[in-house]
């Protein structure tokens, strides 16, 4: 490169700053071309791809077409679920599970992490109702408690836990709640709901 480090004669008076007129380094030029090439290829590819995804999934134009990515990920989720089906316990199996000490102690951990904010550290009730007294808004039978925990009452401020924690942990939490019945606690919240024996 015979041009290298040639001072530009025409630009002499920039407060004493001189300028070379060196050519751009080759790798840098290729970087530039590469970026432009990428842009030229990516835009049509991506627009076409997300459009295809959106129409295939039926999301359509009312969703930003990113809906395509979303639909793809939901399909993956469904496939994953099908591969690892969750065990739904019923009848005596369920009661046995809910009464077993292992479930109760596992449930205590879940409860401490997710429930104390609303039900208090002893289940005495704060934002949510007291879980130790014999009064229930939605029933105190093991099945009813499990249903409360699993599906919640979102409009009343009780989240649905099965979709958050998974059915295993939700069952454990229910087991722990059932074990709380009749426990004496300091400063319990006033009773809510109906008394059950």
């Amino acid at each position: 490169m015979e041009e290298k480090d040639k001072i530009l004669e025409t630009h002499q008076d920039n407060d004493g700053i001189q300028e070379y007129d060196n050519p751009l380094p080759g790798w840098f030029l290729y970087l530039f071309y590469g970026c432009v090439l990428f842009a030229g290829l990516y835009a049509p590819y991506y627009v076409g791809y997300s459009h295809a995804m959106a129409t295939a999934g039926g999301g359509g134009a009312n969703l930003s077409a990113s809906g395509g990515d979303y639909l793809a990920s939901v399909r993956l989720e469904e496939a994953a679920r099908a591969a690892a089906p969750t065990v739904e316990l019923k009848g005596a199996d369920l009661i046995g599970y809910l009464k077993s000490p292992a479930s109760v102690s596992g449930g205590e951990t879940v409860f401490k992490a997710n429930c104390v904010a609303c039900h208090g550290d002893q289940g005495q009730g704060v934002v949510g109702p007291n879980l130790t007294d014999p009064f229930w808004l939605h029933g105190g039978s093991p099945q009813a408690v499990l249903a409360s925990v699993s599906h919640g009452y979102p409009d009343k401020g009780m989240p649905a836990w099965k979709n958050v924690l998974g059915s295993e942990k939700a069952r454990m939490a229910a087991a722990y709640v059932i074990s709380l019945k009749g426990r004496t606690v300091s400063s319990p919240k006033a009773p809510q709901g109906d008394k059950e024996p």
Partner: protein
Amino acid sequence: MLRIKYDDKITRMFLIACLVWGVLGMSAGLWLALELASWKFNLGLPYISFGRLRPLHTNAVIFAFGGNAIFCGVYYSTQRLLKARMFSDVLSRIHFWAWQAIILVGGIGFLFGITQGKEYAELEWSLDLVLALVWVVFAINFFGTVARRREKHLYVALWFYIGTIITIAVLHIVNGLAIPVSLTKSYPVYAGVQDALVQWWYGHNAVGFFLTTPFLGLMYYFVPKAAERPVYSYRLSVMHFWALVFLYIWAGPHHLHYTALPDWAQDLGMVFSVMLLAPSWGGMLNGLLTLRGAWHKLRTDPILKFFAASITFYGMATFEGPLMSIKSVNALSHYTEWTIGHVHSGAIGWVGLLVFGMIYWLVPRMWRTPLHSQALANAHFWTALVGILFYVVSMWIAGITQGLMWKEFTNEGVLAYPNFLEIVTKIIPLYWLRAFGGSLYLGGLLVMVYNVARTIRSAPAFQDEEAMVPEAPAVPAHAAPVAQYWHAVLEGRPFALAILTTVVIAIGGIVEMVPTFLIESNVPTITAVKPYTPLELEGRDIYVREGCYNCHSQMVRPFRDEVARYGDYSKPGEFVYDHPFQWGSKRTGPDLHRIGGKYNNLWHLRHLDDPRLTSPGSIMPAYRFLLESKLDLSLTPNKIRVMRQLGVPYAKEVETECRTQAQTQARSIAADLEKDGVKGMADKEVIALIAYLQRLGTDIKWRETGPAAASIQAPAPAPAVAATATTSTHPSKGAGI
């Protein structure tokens, strides 16, 4: 031959202002870092709670520290490059004092919650107006000097200054358009998707044209001066200047990937961001290669050390930026601390180090005394460098940790970390490390302030203005440089250059904005979406005032993990009445777009009173004062009137009845709280905020239909939302009883 004096006093004034604001702005930053590491640093004071202090920090560092540094260097170099004293000393003084006044008044305003709620554009309309005028003063002063110059040829630094002056004016005016409600409150004319697009067009180009182009100009002046070497390549400077100003302006939408912004705009933003790598690295190369042949001086000269490190950080940040603009990377990085790390490698790496180098170079010349201590300057360099590394590395780790934990699922198909708080507490140690890095950086700055103060103290007495008096011939008009290249023609014609720059920067903005505004299918209407009730609107204004958007997003992206965590993803049509939009850019706390109906009113009350009551270990500041302060409804009719002017379909009567409506809704929420034993809340601000939170994201009945159902089973486009088009706007809606 003529003897002229340069106005150096103005350079000295801006230099000192830059240091003073630098210390203040960065101290605020350090305090914010501590507030995130431990909520106790909020001190229970509304004025410095995180959401109010953060705008003070960002504005002080960008516009006060950065701004004063730009003006300091521009006033110094422009006079010398043009061989002319500034056009008007009076304009220079007006520029200086008005700028400081805006920052002072605006900054204090932020502490009192006076904000427009748009990032880096938080100043309210009244100050925005003054700011625009001051910018015009600066422009007149600058172009006046250009007109009276004695050197025909415009050096590359000046192109960058011209690009800055024009573009910042355009950005500031377009993004600032708002209708006033009172002197200290206004609503932007844009809503939702459009507001988001305009804001990030502005936001990204504040980075591009306030933190990049002017500093590249300064680099082109001060680096060859300090290194005493010629600039590496003139050709490269031509190419990267034009490519940079053309490409930058398109890149804004990369702040809105996977949001409700139309996809074509997102894709344009991404593609242009990736291409931006080349011109950015062009600037880096020209800077670093100018130091060729001066590397040996780096060992002893702190100024060159600062410059070399600064340009290196520029290269790093402009590589990281395009990387983060790629949609699949952004899916992970967006809303995390990674973004914070990225912005700081730009702000304290590139900008900060360049400013420090420039100041060390200027101080001995401006006060005609050698620097008090070279050793201290070297010490400053090393503490700053180690500080940045701590900062950036801790934020990388924190950001990637957050991103991965948010997204992880168990085999059973549920979120591995459903409790958001668990992820928050996980990264607290990294918040401490970041605060440590930040305090090193601030410590270095304090050393510099001491060093400069000592230098100034030992300076000889000044006879009024200590200006240099070079001899400079006026350039006759015909003495145009021999046009070796086509571009040289422009270099002698500043006004042609300015007009061409305006055209070049206008293209990207127009192509992205005009269709988003005009083509209806970009934001499909959802009939179920109704305006906020007067109480909810007041609550929203409290949300804006407290700066909740600094920690919370309101934009559920269409990803499986976000839908599982927050609820149905956000649709463009849901934000049509949001003046300003509040999508946020960071998830220090969880997304709030679907918070409505998730908890009951009592939960929110306790959570705002002290987040630790409901969420042990939370780092959210306590908002106890909202439970004590009375809700002020005096502006409500005005607010409704302005909203109506903006096209929000309130019935005419609402303007007169809004207070009664608000009170009725407040009483019904208070009644619900009373059932749980909390009394006396009906007239408190917290009620309005709760009303707003309970309304958020509920116009679409996703809780009933389920998010997946709402979006997947819809056979054709529109019905997904149209099917749920029944909703009540009854005031007690969302009261949760």
